[in-house]
């Protein structure tokens, strides 16, 4: 079943890409990231160092909007280490839009006192290096990070991610009911983070911030692997 969690990135030779990039990178942090290497696609998921990652942003377009906060936690299938969790508010380039304030619970005061993303790249890279990021919906974290680094370091950062939402989409291919099914009252299957978690009896987290969402994503991946895959599933089958 795992064969269809694919994107145009899936057929990339990631370990080779990392090697190639490490010859081009200039910034020591980016260089270190590529030099740490990427596990081969046939590595069992249980042996892979993972990093659950969640950004809160001012909007959905990486080219137009900015990152407001970063939450991340390193983990493996054996455990999510809360002691190593990291949360950082950063100052967006663009003024904070009123609606996103209510979503993230981050205020203008928080933002005004926050550093620029560039100032927190050292810790961010310490977490990223040697780990495969895990996100819920791949079109936020990777593109936003890519744009931000292009802008600040003139460097390109490319890496595979595991997308727990793509896994849910794959598990529920018929989640949108047909017209006929809608008529007889069939509800669409939601693959949003909170709704997906319910299917695995994972608890509801009241708070919403980048860190708790990153933890929630890590827990969801553990549950998905145990229910639908196996700890021996090759990482190459599920990264995108």
């Amino acid at each position, binding site marked *: 079943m795992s064969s269809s969690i694919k994107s145009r990135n899936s057929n990339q030779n990631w370990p080779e890409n990392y090697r190639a990039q490490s010859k081009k990178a200039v910034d020591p942090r980016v260089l270190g990231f590529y030099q740490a290497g990427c596990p081969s696609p046939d590595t069992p998921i249980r042996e892979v160092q993972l990093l659950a990652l969640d950004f809160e942003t001012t909007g959905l377009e990486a080219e137009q909007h900015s990152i407001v906060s970063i939450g991340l936690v390193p*983990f493996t299938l054996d455990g999510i280490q809360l002691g190593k969790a990291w949360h950082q508010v950063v100052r967006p380039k663009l003024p904070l839009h009123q609606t996103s304030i209510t979503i993230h619970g981050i205020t203008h005061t928080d933002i005004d006192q926050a550093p620029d993303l560039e100032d927190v790249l050292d810790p961010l890279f310490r977490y990223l290096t040697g780990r495969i990021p895990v996100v819920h919906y791949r079109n936020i974290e990777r593109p936003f990070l890519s744009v931000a680094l292009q802008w600040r370091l003139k460097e390109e950062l490319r890496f595979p991610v595991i997308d727990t939402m793509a896994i849910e989409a794959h598990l529920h291919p018929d989640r949108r009911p047909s017209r006929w099914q809608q008529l007889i009252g069939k509800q669409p299957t939601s693959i949003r983070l909170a709704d997906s978690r319910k299917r695995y009896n994972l*608890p509801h987290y009241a*708070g919403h911030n980048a860190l708790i969402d990153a933890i929630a994503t890590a827990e969801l991946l553990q549950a998905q692997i145990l229910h639908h895959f196996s700890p021996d599933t090759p990482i190459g089958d599920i990264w995108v």
Partner: protein
Amino acid sequence: MQAELLDIRNHIAQYPPFDDLPEELLERIVAGIEVVYCRAGTPILELGQDNHWLHYIRSGAVEIFRRSGELYNRVGEGEVFGQFGLMMNKKVRFPAKAIEDCLIYKIPDEVFQYLWEQDESFADFVEIEDRSRLRSAVSRREKSNELMTAKVTRLISREPISAPTTVRLQEAARIMTDNGVSALLLMDETGDKPKLTGIITDRDLRTRAVTHALASETPISEIMTEGLITISARSFIFEAMLTMLHNNVHHLPVVEGDEVRGVVALSDIVKYESQSSLFLVSNIYQQKHVKGLKKVSLDVRDSFVRMVNEDANSHMVGSAMAGIGRSFSQKLLELGEEELGPPPVPYCFMALGSMARDEQLVVTDQDNAMILDDSFIPEEHDDYFLALAKFVSDGLAECGYSYCTGDIMATNPKWRQPLKVWKQYFTQWIDSPNAETLLNSNIFFDLDGIHGQTELAEQLKTLISEKASNSQRFLTLLARNALNRTPPLGFFRTFVLEEDGKHQKTFNLKRRGTAPLSDLIRVHALACGARSQNSFERLRDIAKTKLLMEDDASNLRDALEFISIVRIRHQALAIEEGREPDNNVRPKDLSPFERSHLKDAFQVVSNAQKFLRFRYNAGGGRNV
């Protein structure tokens, strides 16, 4: 700790032993946590494995086992496991398995050791508290009770000893002596196959033969007990015990089809349960004065607590307590008859309510009545029966069964009447019912003859079972009354609390739990003409009809058992702590598992009430 982890800190801070910890210790715990997801059915800790974590259940449920593989405990959200190994040699002593999908917060050993050394209440919890907490846990199997798990056939050690009903007294006595048995089965051998028809016991030989100096040539059929009470070979030992308690017999033939497998004696069972409630019962029968009975009654609560600690189920506890109550009444009637002389006309003494249902607990008042033979003439005979009723009622009050506040006692002339009047009462209640009078007469629909001419009570049961099922209006009003008391569940599955006499926020497990349940079970039982009185037996009878789906009946059975057993444990705990037992429970006295299961059980009651309203067209209850 990151402020964004507040959600996790807040969850832990709700549950003991973490609820009293200072903020810095909570933060230290959260910072140490590793989160792991476990799928239902998979092992979490395996025996002898190295373990360096205290496991905290964020969601889901886990079963803990002894090294023998026996179930030891079941824990749920907010509870911990794995601590025993951490206090010993870091090896798993109690294996654990997820029974639901679980999210586990693993707290590292360094943090555990630090808390254990630094925080006294935490240390108490993991060292001592655990044992007493376990006792009130839902599925406690620490000491598996053989009475409940072993079949009665295990007690049979030899072939049954029998003789034809035609033998003479002396011959019967010789057979018993030769074989060293205390009971002899008597077979009718006139047919193709010998048929069990009677029994004679050592005690019968003493009380019936020797004291009356019967001739040794007397046919045994003249003094044997007929209408035998037997038990199926498939029954459990505790069922044999209940049968003995209920009928006050000391020997039970065990039968399989038409065949007699053997005889089980009281002394066989006593070996299984050293502190038996059967002991207490036989002790009651040995007393010669009310004073002696009063002394024995002081042991009733101990016997109750022991049964609870030996993991008896609610049916067992309820029947044992009812059996004890019945024995007090029977002994008092015997003493009364000794003092006042033999009754001028035959009569039957009836138990009503919980005693008749075999669902009695320790806090109970007396509900009884007398059916007199129709030859009763008030002017000539009533002085006697009033005196007898008063003797029994006062005696029961001495023994801890307080007077009935509703005056439902045989001392009330209204409830001391000949059979024909009782028949009129029931005919009127059923044929021309009225909600108000039905509310007060509810209790009479749980009745059991316990002394004297018990067939008088059987006649009333027959009348009820024939009439009730045909009176739609009676069932409608009875159902409406059964809806008056609702389970204490709010809209969002929260407990609805009331203030008790001590100004504590509680809910009443009897008024809001077991009573509405037995009320609604009674309605269905009467509707299908069942003669049974006990709620579990009524459910079994109801399930045989199409009145309830099999699943609904078994849900009701589980709900009744669960609410009853929580109520029973609550009372046992109060007695052990020297408090007066009651029915008012504070949610915080319950384990998270009990809380969640109680909510499920109350939900079952609530659904069953909805069905009752619909089935009997009962409209809205008054919802007290």
